[in-house]
Structures are given as C-alpha cells and as structure tokens.
C-alpha cells in the first residue's frame, strides 16, 4: 500500500513570462503507516509536491500512482483512489461553508457515498478525534467559533472521509502553542488508532523531529534529502543551513555540549529529553 510519484515535473503558467518550474524530477514513495515531514524554504515546492499526491495537480511529466492505479486518470476507480488521500490545506478554515458544524463535516462523507447512518457515525468520530464535543458543537454555526476551533472543524471534515493517507499543509500555521500541540496530539492519535499515513508540510524543524519518522528536504523543486530526521540533521547540518532550513535548537545545543566534552546519547528529540540527558551526564538529581 503506497503512493508513488515517479520522476514528476510541474511547471506553473506554462508559455507565459510568469512560467515557473516548481518541481523537477521528483520521485517519492509514501507507504501506509509512515509519518513523513516535508520541509524546505518558502517557495521550494512543498505545496506543489503534496498536491500531486491526490491528483489536484497533474504532473507535466512523470507518473503518480496509488497502489499502481494512475491517480490522474478519469473514471470512478481513479476518483476512489484519490479519495483515499485526505488533504488539509493551509488555513483550512477558509473552506468552511455550511450552516452547522455537522453539515460541514458531513460534506466529504456524503460525497463519498456514505449513507446517513454512516455519515452521522463518521462525523461523530471525527469530531471526537479533533477534540470537539459533539453535543456542544454539532449544531452550532462554524462561523461563530474561534480560529482554532474552526481549524478543527476543517480537519474533522477531512478525517471524517476515513482516508488511508492524510496530507496536512502547515496545519499549525497561525495557531497559539497550546492549540498547536493539541492539533498534533490529535493527528498522532489518529495515526496510532487507524494506522493512517501522515504527510506533514511544516516550517518548524521541532515539529518535524518530534513527530516524523522520515523527513524530505525540498530545495528548488527537488528532493535534497530523504531519510530519518535526526540522521539528516546530524550529517547535513551545514547544507541545510545553506538552503534556508534551520537545525532545531535542541540539536545545536546537544552538539555544542558534545563538542565541549559532555557525553550525551544520540537521538535526543526535544527539550525534556535533553534536560534528562544532561542531568544524567552530570550526575545531578
């Protein structure tokens, strides 16, 4: 079970002076159950890349397949394949349109052909996942919610379609730290309980390290690195800085301390782990 992009190219506004090659020769496979973070400088092509994962953009050259089914093809089968990939855009709350939270979340499942009973069940589960209480929110107007709550409604609208893959383009942009953590906690819970593959576009290296088990670094429309986040930061730190991607603070500090002669274990992912490791190395309580 996987999505495969093979040698894809994408050019925007072909044949005008605004022509822009946004992706060149990108090959990526995303398997079911993975958590993949995609990072890169602004304008490097991250959003363009993920929109090829469910056929919203068609490659100029190359192929996009889900389980060997051409995503961009016409017909019901290809459409069904595309709908296995849920897509949460930047500022997804801007896509909300219905009169009640329930109706908005139900839009996707209904389009997918669920019957009313299944729709109700899917909406209830999706709302639970994103931490919105069903009885409190289902009948409220989505436009009277706070920004963070609206974003959850939008994410629930995608989750309710029961996708096998969930692509999120900067899901935490513009949220306060607490809602940000909450959104990620919910996404991870989803991954655990349903085994959904998660593709996460982010500008935050901390998020990438903390949540992903694989990382793609995009630069100038090409995949620069593809591998385990910690390993990439360790081996290619200087190159990353050169392409405008920063190494997480925790890594920098840990590296610095190692240089100064402190013996710290590998694979420290966040502040808490670092604090623990330092205490251990120093023998503090």
């Amino acid at each position: 079970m996987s999505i495969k992009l093979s040698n894809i190219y994408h050019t925007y506004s072909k044949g005008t002076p605004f022509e822009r090659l946004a992706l060149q020769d990108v090959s990526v496979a995303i398997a079911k159950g993975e958590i993949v973070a995609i990072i890169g400088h602004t304008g490097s092509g991250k959003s363009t890349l993920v929109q090829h994962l469910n056929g919203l953009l068609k490659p100029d050259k190359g192929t996009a397949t889900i389980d060997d089914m051409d995503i961009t093809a016409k017909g019901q089968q290809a459409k069904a394949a595309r709908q296995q990939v849920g897509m949460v855009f930047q500022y997804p709350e801007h896509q909300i349109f219905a009169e009640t939270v329930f109706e908005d979340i139900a839009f996707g499942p209904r389009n997918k052909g669920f019957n009313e009973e299944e729709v109700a069940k899917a909406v209830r589960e999706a709302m639970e996942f994103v931490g919105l209480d069903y009885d409190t929110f289902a009948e409220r107007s989505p436009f009277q919610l706070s920004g963070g709550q609206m974003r959850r409604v939008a994410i629930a609208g995608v989750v309710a379609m029961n996708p096998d893959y969930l692509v999120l383009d900067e899901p935490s942009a513009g949220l306060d730290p607490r809602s940000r953590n909450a959104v990620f906690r919910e996404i991870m819970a989803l991954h655990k309980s349903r085994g959904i593959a998660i593709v996460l576009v982010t500008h935050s290296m901390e998020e990438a390290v903390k949540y992903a088990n694989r990382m793609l670094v995009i630069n100038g429309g090409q995949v620069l690195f593809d591998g385990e986040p910690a390993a990439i930061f360790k081996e290619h730190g200087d190159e990353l800085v050169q392409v405008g991607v920063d190494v997480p603070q925790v890594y920098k500090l840990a590296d610095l301390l190692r240089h100064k002669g402190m013996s710290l274990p590998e694979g420290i992912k966040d502040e808490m782990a670092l604090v623990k490791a330092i205490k251990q190395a120093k023998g503090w309580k």
Partner: protein
Amino acid sequence: MMLTEITLGQYFPGNSFVHRLDPRTKILATIIYIIAIFFAETPLSYGILTAFAALVILISRLPWLLVLKALKPIWIIVILTMFIHMFTAPGEHVIWSWKFLNVTQEGLDLGLKMAVRLILLLLFSSVLTFTTSPIVLTDGIENLLRPFKAVGVPAHELAMMMTIALRFIPTLLEETDRIMKAQTARGADFANGNMLQRLKNMLPLLVPLFISAFRRADELAVAMEARCYRGGEGRTRMHELAYGGGDYVALALVLALAVGLAVLRWGKLCGLSS
C-alpha cells in the same frame, strides 16, 4: 486549465516601444482606432486597418499566440453576429436559400464586415491591456477623466475603485482555485449534473469565497485608513505621467490613419479624391 491562466485583459510585461508609451497615449490611440474602424467601408480600408493592427502587435513584440488567444472568449459572438447579419440584412442578390432562409450578397458582405470589425476592435484593445500594467492604466484613466471633474465625474474615486478591483482579481482567482481544490479533495463535483444541481454544487465554493472577499475588503479599508487615506483631495503621486517624443509620433500615426480612412470614405463626396 487553471483559473489563473486566463489571458484576456492580462498584463504581459515587456520593454517595447508600445510598452513604454504613456498610458494616456495608448488609451486615446485605442479610442481613435475604434472610431476609425467605423469609418471603414471598402476592402481596402479594412486591409489598412488590419495592417496597422498587425504592425502595432509586431512592434509591441507580443507573442502572436497570446494575442489570438484573447479572441477565444468572443469567437462565438463574432460568428453569431456574422450569421444574424447574413440572414437578416435586406438585399437583392440571393446567392443561397433554403426554405425561408435567404443569404444575399449584401447580407454576406455586411456579416463579414461586422465580424472583421469586432475582431479588430478586440485585437487592438487587447494590445492596450497586454502592454499596460493595470495600475498605470487606471492612472491614465484618472488623468484623462480629470477635466470632467467640474461636471461631477468622480475621477479619483472611479480610478481608485478600478485599481482596487484590478488588484484583487488575481487574488480572488487564486482564492477560487484554492477553495475549489480543497472542496474537490473532499469529493465536491463542479462539472456534472443539471443546472439546479450545479448551482447547488457551487455553494461550497461561493460561500467561502464571499466570506473571504468581505474579510479582505474589511482589512483593506482598515489598512488604508491607518495610512491616512482620505480620498483624492490634494494627493500627490510617486510617478507623474509625462508625454515623450514617442507619444506624439504614436498619436500622429493613429490620427493619420483615422483621417486617411475618413477621406477614403467621404472624400468622393467633397471632391477630395478622384
């Protein structure tokens, strides 16, 4: 096709003679040319007009394909106009008939003439919008309308409204594209179904679009007021428009074209040409 790739009325940056002309020159020239189109009668005058338009396109170094693409949205209107004239114009020399439909030589001539007129009109005005950035264009319009302020034409307000509208067209198209993609990913279908169905299917697109348009308008109004915008009274501008040598040459050429065509048409009556 992506929505952002519509060509009609889009600026095509360049640095040709035509691009560098003052916007007022280009607007006036376009108006004079359009008037000249209605002077034309004989195939000779249409030939001259076509050659003139071709020359301007050549000098402006616009890709031919782009200019021809601008005709795409109106070719149906052109053909319709042509047929209506062909079938309805009165005339004696019937060259083809079927049941109650008659095509006369006069009708055919008139139909072709109207089609050519429409095409030339659109070609020439699309050169104006292709070679002039929208902001500069509205500057030119405001400037040309200024004399009419005395009779109550709100020149500045009109120009500001146009500038803002033009500024937001690409943004709204982008937004439409984005929301359409988001809803497509949720299984929305904008292409199929009957009229009513399709209208209903548009709701998930239109509602967010209106909300975002209102939000943007609100933000813009606040931003403009925060920067002390208080209308056109006493406003100075960063780029003052100024005519140069090229502008006089260009205007003289179009004027010559219009006068020439007028002479071709009415000269005989006044005994100017043989």
